[in-house]
């Protein structure tokens, strides 16, 4: 979808961006699609296995339902429009060059040292096991 301006060997697309693209394809379709059909509509030289991975990840997130069709699965979006729209939005924003401008996160990533420090502060009962 956004592949046109990406030369070969360019930095990989953000995972969220691919998920959003796959989701958009499925939402535009009136019926459930197999990974092969999604691959055709996505274009852009993606590997079949990449598409399968994306679709199963979206399924794991509860974004897609899947139906057995022959030997493969076919996928369709579940009907949670606001959540899906937000997910799609995330994909678009992740691809922004200045993405830290638009996403002010509640918590930033922790370094291992910070994680230890916080565990001590919290006296986390789960830290032992």
């Amino acid at each position, binding site marked *: 979808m956004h592949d046109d301006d990406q030369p070969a060997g360019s930095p990989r697309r953000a995972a969220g961006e691919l998920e959003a693209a796959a989701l958009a394809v499925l939402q535009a379709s009136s019926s459930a699609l197999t990974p092969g059909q999604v691959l055709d509509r996505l274009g852009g030289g993606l590997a079949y296995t990449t598409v399968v991975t994306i679709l199963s990840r979206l399924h*794991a*997130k*509860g*974004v897609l339902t899947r139906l057995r069709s022959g030997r493969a699965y076919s996928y369709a979006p579940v009907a*949670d*429009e*606001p*959540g*899906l*729209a*937000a*997910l*799609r*939005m*995330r994909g*678009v*924003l992740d691809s*922004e*060059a*200045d*993405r*830290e*401008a*638009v*996403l*002010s*996160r*509640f*918590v*930033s*990533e*922790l*370094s291992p*040292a*910070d*994680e230890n*420090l*916080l*565990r*001590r*502060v*919290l*006296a*986390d*009962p*789960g*830290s032992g096991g």
Partner: protein
Amino acid sequence: MHVFVWLPLVIPAIAALAARPLAELLPPRTATWLLAASAVILAVASCGALGVLALAAAVHIPFVAAAAGMSVRSVNSSDPASLPLGVLAGALLAAATIAAVRAAWLRTTALVTAHQQNRQLASASQVTEATEAVVVQDDGVDAYTVPGWPSRIIVTSGMLAALTPAEREVLLAHERTHAGSRHHLFAAVARLAAAANPLLGPLATAIGYSVERWADERAAAAAGSRPLAARTIAKAALAATAAPAFRAHSAVVLAALPRPSTLRRAGPVPRRVAALLGPPPRLRLVPLVLTVALVAFAGLSALEAARDLHAMIELAQSAV
């Protein structure tokens, strides 16, 4: 050229050293405004000083002096500026301008995209103008505000599962403050200033930290408990980083306050937690007044340098 032209170039380095202590010392709202205003004034003042240096050197070139109707002899006798220095200043000013324009462009397009995406989200059924937060079905622990008119808060189901109802309120109050107080504009201004003058980078980082603190304190006030807010941030950060097993534990209690020496090297999240566990921030006049004075001094120095150059040029023009 007087000492004044150098002050706007040196003071940003001092401000860079003071930025993080200021963000931790002052009440977050005050710190944010102070740092953002300082960043803008220092960026403008330092670019102005570079411009003065470049221009002062340029008028020593006979061709430029003649074009401006100035006497070269008068210029040379009044101000022994060096040409290499002027060329360097001019190159730095050009680089600063290009970097600032590029940063402004990138940030504007990012914010416009965010706004458009917010609008598209609003067209999804069940989402109305009044919808404040949208929950995404995702095991990942994440929450963020997407700025726009109106802004929208996005929370993953993983984040909700990691928090108790009271802690969810803290999270929402925090993100609501980001949206309501337009924190992305402070961040944008800071990044723009830092693009024009990389010495101001630490100010932009400190502003990023102090808007988080601002939202933390507001969330703590809304929840009526600073320890609760501290625990929410710590839990959310750990859940976002840790194995899923951690998320089941809701009965965590706050233990010891980390020592200041440990915190100096810590990242923003432990420092935010420690700040909430410590006493509420209060206004300290001495660092505030010192900073205002320092920044004003930089700005006035740049103005004085420009006035000085202007007087020299007028003198040289009258001496033709």
